[in-house]
């Protein structure tokens, strides 16, 4: 087999491994189903009345934001999983096998794409139930979903690096949370950016989450989004490339702690 074929075959084997564990861990099942549902309901019914989104129902404004936030966090399974592999000696085992040197990471991040897809579907269904409506065409909606998944994939690589550099599964999870939580809030995900103090607006406007949310919002409900879709794709590509390189380099030097 050629190097690429080997890498792909190994990636699939390891993605399957990551996915197999999910139905066996009730907390993970909750993380992928109940948590997104809970977020949708809480935001729509608790904040929905208080946040002004001129021209749009809050639920229409919110759904693209909450979907992007959820996939942004989706990679935490990769961070936790890799930190666990390091702790339990599995990294030593994998690195001593004649497998592709990136497959553990590509496998885990690919598994995240599957779980992210699942979470997005759950949220769309719940969104539709509480009044969300797509107002654009099928092509736009599909493009929006593609952007969302690409964005989630990029963040999985960020999480992969976090997982390989943190000292325990617990710290991997909280480190990822600390890094991404403020990012999602200082963005257009939940509130219009122009409602923030002006110094914060500057931060929010360059935040890749704002760019992605604006693009996805445009593709779902027809708000203007200019070049945001391309910018978002560039961000995803850039983050994925940078963090994949960092993570693979790190993985090759990792030994069980």
């Amino acid at each position, binding site marked *: 087999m050629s190097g690429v074929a080997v890498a792909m075959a190994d990636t699939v084997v390891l993605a399957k491994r990551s996915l197999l*564990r999910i139905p066996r*861990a009730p907390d993970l099942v909750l993380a992928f189903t109940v948590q997104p549902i809970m977020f949708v309901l809480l935001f729509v019914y608790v904040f929905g009345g208080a946040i002004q989104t001129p021209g749009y129902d809050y639920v229409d404004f919110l759904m693209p934001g909450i979907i992007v936030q959820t996939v942004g966090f989706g990679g935490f399974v990769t961070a936790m999983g890799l930190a666990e592999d390091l702790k339990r000696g*599995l990294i030593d085992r994998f690195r001593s096998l004649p497998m592709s040197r990136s497959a553990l990471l590509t496998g885990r991040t690919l598994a995240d794409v599957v779980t992210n897809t699942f979470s997005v579907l759950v949220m769309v269904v719940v969104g539709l139930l509480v009044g969300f409506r797509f107002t654009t065409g099928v092509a736009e909606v599909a493009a929006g979903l593609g952007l969302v998944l690409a964005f989630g994939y990029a963040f999985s690589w960020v999480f992969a690096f976090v997982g390989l550099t943190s000292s325990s599964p617990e710290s991997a999870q909280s480190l990822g949370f600390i890094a991404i939580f403020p990012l999602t809030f200082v963005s257009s995900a939940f509130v219009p950016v122009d409602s923030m103090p002006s110094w914060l607006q500057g931060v929010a406007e360059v935040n890749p989450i704002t760019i992605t949310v604006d693009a996805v919002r445009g593709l779902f409900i027809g708000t203007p989004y200019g070049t945001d879709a391309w910018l978002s794709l560039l961000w995803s590509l850039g983050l994925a490339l940078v963090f994949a390189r960092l993570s693979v380099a790190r993985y090759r030097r990792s030994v069980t702690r």
Partner: protein
Amino acid sequence: MAGHTYGDNLSTVNPELAIEATELRKTYGDVVALAGIDLAVPAGTVLGLLGPNGAGKTTAVRILTTLLPPDGGRARVAGLDVVADAGALRSRIGLAGQYAAVDENLTGFENLEMVGRLYRLGRGPARLRAEELLDRFDLTEAAKRLVRTYSGGMRRRLDLAAALVADPPVLFLDEPTTGLDPRSRRDLWETIEARVAEGTTVLLTTQYLEEADRLADEIAVIDHGRVIARGSADELKDRVGGERLEVVLDDGGGMDQAIAALAPMGDETPVAQDRTVRLALRRRSGAIAEAVRRLDEVGVGIDDVALRRPTLDDVFLALTGRAADDATSPDDTRQAEGIGAP
């Protein structure tokens, strides 16, 4: 990677030495983990790397299994250089770690199937091999259970099975029985012995002198990153002198008289511990009768008298001036964590 098929794994390039290391060195910051060690393991034999935590055993295994590059020196395993031929070497070795490196959230079968696929076995052969190994390691009944429900002994067996998936000619076992109960330990020993009987070369690290004594053809005692002694268990024992006399005194006391009375029988002063007096004998024959007579003359009562061959504990004590089990160095508490995983 393309040229290595499963069948290749059964033969080594150089049948004489399966593991060969020259002047291996590794430092972590200021800590010298390996200060230049040489190893030579003939194919089909077992080398025991014996030493306390932090002696450099795990570092040596990691270098030989391609997980760490050495800072200096060279090593060949199964005829392949551990740095230059690392990729090809990985399909010829099996590693069972200090921790049971199996996935808790998979079943035993799924673990072995996964490892098989990563060794480039096809789906069918990987499954077949998994079943075969589960059967051999007495895990067939637990095959469909998640590993997190396994006992410590079952995990170690599965870990060892995973290391054997590709039938590697060289096997590295890093403290394979640490944390196991005596029965599981003996079971694992038997399994390892069976592999060796089939021609596998094994490098085994251990803190247990009994384990090295039982399994290893040759033992290298490592301390502070250096090999401080090597030889067969018997040769090492001979180095610390002949047989030991152990006398257990009765409740009447008289330890000081006993030590004085027995001293002429050996070259060194007898050592007292609780009610036991120990002594390295100068001459074996007639020793028990002589000891009884000498103690009788000074009026010291005896519960028990025995002769025993020196153990590797005695060897370690003689070589390093400290007992093997109080030798834990502070920089190694890290490694010790997680051994007693639930």
